[in-house]
């Protein structure tokens, strides 16, 4: 069944979209990630204009994170204070990101920017995750206890300290704001929630306890991606409601199955699988930049979209 997307102005098979949503849903349910970093490149591959893919994906992330954050609120695993500081940074970052996005779109370099961001970040995160989970597997075989994290680093020397009771931290707001800004920029440019950057940053950089990390990051992601969606909708007119709803329905169904599969696998195995997938997407996008494209020319409307 073909469906004509009103904003993207392309006709796509509805089942393909449901299937893509479902596939990414399975993965996000399995690994507990948002899946934006996989969905956006997949949308590029099926011919959705990149600007529409990025904006619509932001809209979809809001929805798919919503039920997650409700569950975390119920379990009281959201550090609202930390979330709010991250959010302030995030909103600033999203605004910067959209301005940058529109500027580069006018220059005709937005595709390059989006793809380069993907290659760089997926490469770093995937690589780190791969090494870390290999080490974890090796450690669990040797049966030595987990390495204790250093509790004091340079971050504790910074001014403007604030107390975060839920996380049990007393640290400066500067690194938190910076993490927020950074994730906000990525969210606007890459059409991702940014959980894959924020979660490691919260654990390793800020030293937050793992149990509040996911809930707090989801809390921040919802508001930042909602803001990004609105910015894209009002400045670029690139949010496609029909596309978002189809992806979402597929995604929610897929996530249920993914969560079931996820409980059957070990955490280290899951992480190594995820790392390999992240590296795979990174490799494919990187290859596209390196190999001579079959069509050197591309068309765009005058003055942007």
């Amino acid at each position: 069944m073909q469906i004509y997307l009103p904003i993207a102005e392309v006709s796509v098979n509805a089942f393909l979209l449901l299937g893509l949503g479902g596939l990414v849903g399975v993965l996000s349910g399995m690994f507990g990630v948002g899946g934006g970093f996989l969905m956006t490149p997949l949308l590029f591959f099926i011919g959705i204009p990149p600007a529409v893919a990025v904006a619509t994906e932001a809209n979809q992330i809001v929805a798919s994170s919503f039920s997650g954050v409700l569950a975390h609120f119920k379990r009281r695993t959201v550090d609202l204070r930390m979330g709010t500081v991250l959010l302030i940074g995030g909103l600033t970052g999203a605004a910067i990101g959209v301005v940058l996005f529109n500027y580069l779109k006018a220059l005709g370099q937005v595709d390059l920017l989006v793809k380069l961001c993907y290659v760089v970040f997926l490469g770093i995160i995937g690589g780190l995750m791969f090494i870390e989970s290999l080490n974890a597997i090796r450690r669990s075989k040797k049966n030595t206890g987990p390495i204790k994290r250093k509790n004091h680093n340079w971050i504790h020397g910074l001014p403007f300290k604030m107390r975060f009771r839920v996380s049990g931290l007393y640290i400066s707001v500067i690194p938190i704001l910076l993490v927020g800004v950074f994730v906000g920029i990525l969210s606007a440019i890459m059409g991702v929630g940014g959980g894959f950057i924020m979660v490691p940053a919260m654990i390793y950089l800020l030293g937050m306890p793992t149990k509040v990390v996911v809930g707090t990051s989801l809390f921040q992601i919802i508001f930042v991606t909602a803001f990004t969606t609105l910015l894209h909708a009002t400045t670029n007119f690139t949010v496609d409601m029909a596309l978002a709803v189809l992806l979402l329905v597929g995604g929610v169904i897929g996530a249920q199955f993914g969560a079931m599969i996820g409980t059957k696998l070990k955490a280290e195995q899951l992480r190594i699988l995820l790392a390999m997938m992240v590296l795979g997407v990174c490799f494919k996008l990187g290859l596209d930049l390196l190999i001579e494209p079959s069509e050197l020319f591309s068309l765009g409307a005058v003055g942007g979209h």
Partner: protein
Amino acid sequence: MLRKLALMICCALPAQAEEQVVLGLSQNRVAITANFDGSEILVFGAVKREDPIPEGDPLEVVIAVSGPKEPLTVRRKERKYGIWVNTESVTVDRAPSFYAVATSGPFDQIVSEAEDIKHSISIGNAITSVSARAQSANGNDFAEAVARIRTNNGLYSIRENTVTVDQQTLFKASISMPANLTEGDYITRIFLMRDGKVISTHETQIDVRKVGLERFLFNLSRQQPLIYGLLSLAIAIIAGWGASAFFRYVRRGA
């Protein structure tokens, strides 16, 4: 412009043209609905003439359907620091969003080069790229790229021998339009050709419009972008939350 005006006046005077087109279309509106996946339009007509059929080569018919013309930015990639980056860009003055030419015979044989240029019939001539040539030494490559990319997307096509002409009087052709159409007024031109020359032209219009939900969403996104953005967030949240609540309910029930 003057030449066009003169041509239009010529066409308007019945005494000037010995053979004229009487045209019918199976539909003069194409509605883009949510499940739009292309459309087929039957173009048919007859040649009206006072005098007997002239001697010589038989009458040939060319039908050109053109979507709205808009300026385009064409960019070219080049290898820089090891990766492929958009470097040069050129603005093509006007290129139709859709262009299909149907003919009753091989294009080169029934349309002379001069008439092709005068009436901008072929794909290459339907793209106005004067300033592209001024902007870049290889401006032509950019105009050709527009034709090539859109031909590959199924948006531009030349369909030779798809117009059937009966006894030099009746003609018909079916023009298929792909699913990735954009909105606008699609100008349909019919050319009657003899000896490679245009002896009569006729112009009509097909309206391609989004309708229903598509129309509503598109208009809302342009006229009330903030409301559209909030609405799409609300719908997405309700859909996502509703679906997972449904699953929880099912699982608890089971």
